[in-house]
């Protein structure tokens, strides 16, 4: 749509004012003075390209590049003039929400001849999220900038920046119950497998190569078939805490980058989902924060893609009903599912684990340690004068005591949850998660529950 800008309005008002003054003063000279401004407007309007002659086409290309110490995302928007006329174009693109452009420009202005193309190139540092662009703004004007027309050129593009996933090797999962689908977990049920399970009487249809000839020889009128332990898949449910009240953020004073505890939570969830799906298990996920975002149970790469996209799109927040873990829809998980809860926890979350156990689920809690995330070892807070690594808030005796109290409270809560026969991992986010998960998923730990954490240094 063409728009009358401030320039046109000012000149028009001057013209009108001069005409009126000329009329009131009965002076032809003033009327002729207005001609100067009318000519300015006229040249602008005359040189403005007709709307049907303006043909612009835009194309967007989004790619990942390696920008030194961090991965960057580069956006290139090409706008081509397919019309026959020279036009003056101002291009303006909008970066995704919360993105800070680190190189390049979001605006460009210049003349565009027929067949020429202009490019907007900018890049930003990778940050977890899903970014979608639909259009690019183009403003076409005459050389004087008197008349301007705004175009929204379709230039679709999207990119998902998935959470970082630490590599995880095979996880020795041995849940209490499995799904009846061929997999890799011994299911404590006789059937087709590799490990010997037992012998039973022959049923018509059993393969002859499974006949137990020795036993059959001892009982002349009967046949016996060997049974093997059936290997099935596990059903794993991930519950990811994206509540604002459990999240912590730190802004690096040097680089200005923000790191949040939820990024570690998302990374852990992504890594676990990938490991379990890679082993052939069925995985579902529920993220609760601003809203509950479920990913219903599924298998394979498609499911991994769904889970990763969900994690990429998750925004930390809350305040609604999903702020209370008591209202989480546990029914979306099957009763056979092993539920892995990844949450830094607050005191009121205790009741959720009671509910989880009451529903008959087997549970494992992975709790990212907020104290470790804030930098420093909470065990050493009691020695504030030791070294320069402590932050100011740790140095002060009053905050040091508060940290110790909060840490004790957290330890008590974790211990309390572990006594509900829920496996608990107290995860210091600066350390790898894999060894802790591997230890916690051992059958004896998973069945009895217990607290897994790094050994405190002597």
């Amino acid at each position, binding site marked *: 749509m*063409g728009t*009358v800008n401030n320039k046109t309005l000012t000149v028009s008002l001057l013209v009108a004012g001069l005409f009126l003054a000329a009329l009131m003063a009965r002076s032809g000279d003033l009327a002729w003075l207005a001609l100067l401004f009318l000519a300015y407007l006229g*040249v602008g309007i005359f040189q403005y390209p007709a709307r049907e002659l303006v043909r612009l086409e835009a194309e967007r290309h989004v790619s990942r590049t390696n920008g030194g110490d961090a991965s960057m995302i580069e956006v290139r928007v090409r706008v081509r003039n397919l019309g026959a006329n020279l036009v003056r174009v101002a291009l303006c693109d909008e970066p995704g929400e919360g993105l800070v452009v680190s190189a390049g420009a979001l605006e460009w202005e210049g003349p565009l001849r027929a067949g020429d193309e202009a490019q907007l190139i900018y890049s930003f540092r990778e940050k977890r999220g899903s970014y979608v662009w639909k259009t690019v703004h183009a403003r076409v004007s005459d050389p004087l*900038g008197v008349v301007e027309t705004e175009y929204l050129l379709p230039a679709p593009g999207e990119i998902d920046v998935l959470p970082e996933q630490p590599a995880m090797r095979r996880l020795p999962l041995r849940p209490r119950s499995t799904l009846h689908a061929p997999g890799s977990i011994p299911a404590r049920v006789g059937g087709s497998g590799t490990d010997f399970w037992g012998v039973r009487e022959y049923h018509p249809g059993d393969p002859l190569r499974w006949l137990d000839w020795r036993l059959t020889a001892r009982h002349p009128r009967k046949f016996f078939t060997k049974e093997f332990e059936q290997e099935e898949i596990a059903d794993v449910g991930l519950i990811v805490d994206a509540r604002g009240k459990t999240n912590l953020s730190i802004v690096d004073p040097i680089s200005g980058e923000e790191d949040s505890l939820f990024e570690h939570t998302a990374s852990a969830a992504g890594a676990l989902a990938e490991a379990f799906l890679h082993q052939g298990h069925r995985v579902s996920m529920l993220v609760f924060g601003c809203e509950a975002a479920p990913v219903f149970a599924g298998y394979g790469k498609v499911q991994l893609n769904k889970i990763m996209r969900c994690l990429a799109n998750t925004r930390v927040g809350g305040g609604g009903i999903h702020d209370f873990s008591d209202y989480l829809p546990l029914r979306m998980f099957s009763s056979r599912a092993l539920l892995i809860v990844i949450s830094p926890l607050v005191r009121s979350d205790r009741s959720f684990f009671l509910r989880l156990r009451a529903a008959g689920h087997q549970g494992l809690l992975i709790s990212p340690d907020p104290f470790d995330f804030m930098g420093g070892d909470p065990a050493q807070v009691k020695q504030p004068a030791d070294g320069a690594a402590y932050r100011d808030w740790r140095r002060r005796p009053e905050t040091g005591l508060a940290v110790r109290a909060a840490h004790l409270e957290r330890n008590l809560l974790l211990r309390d949850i572990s006594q509900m026969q829920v496996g608990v991992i107290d995860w210091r986010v600066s350390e790898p998660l894999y060894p802790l998960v591997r230890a916690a998923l051992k059958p004896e730990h998973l069945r009895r529950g217990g607290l897994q954490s790094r050994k405190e240094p002597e």
Partner: protein
Amino acid sequence: MTVKRGEDLTPSRLLRLACPIAAAACLTIGMASASPGGFATLVFVTGVALLSALAMILTRRWASVWLATIALVAFTGLAAYGLLAQADSVLMLAGAAAALAGWDLALEETRHPRDADSGAKLTGEIEKNHLRSLALAVSIGLMGAVVGQNLQVRLPFIVVALLVGLGVWMLERVLWEVNR
């Protein structure tokens, strides 16, 4: 001055500085030649012209479009006053034309600062196009106004009023059409 050390003095920048000074000079000289209200009026007119020129020049530093617009209105007012006071009409028209050009260039520079990351070559092309159109507009307007002032056409007041009304209506229609 607004020109920073190490910056190129492009034609556009040179004109942006020269036009307000030229406008102030034309209007002051024109008024001085007519001296309509004595010395006090001349001092007042000179003061207003110089302040307007200064405001137009400092538009870029303060990135204020309004400053340049107020200066343009002041210049136009002075030119109109000069024309009514029988000052030299060519100087008055030239002053108004220079003020218009200065205002346009000041607005253009606030819209596209030189240090924008768009490349000097492209900025140069924009400038060239813009200056060409501005020169065309100012020269047509100035020539038309000068020629028109020398034409002696006597029209009854009612016809002039109708013509002015028609002009305003046509202007409104053009703007409406552009908006549509």
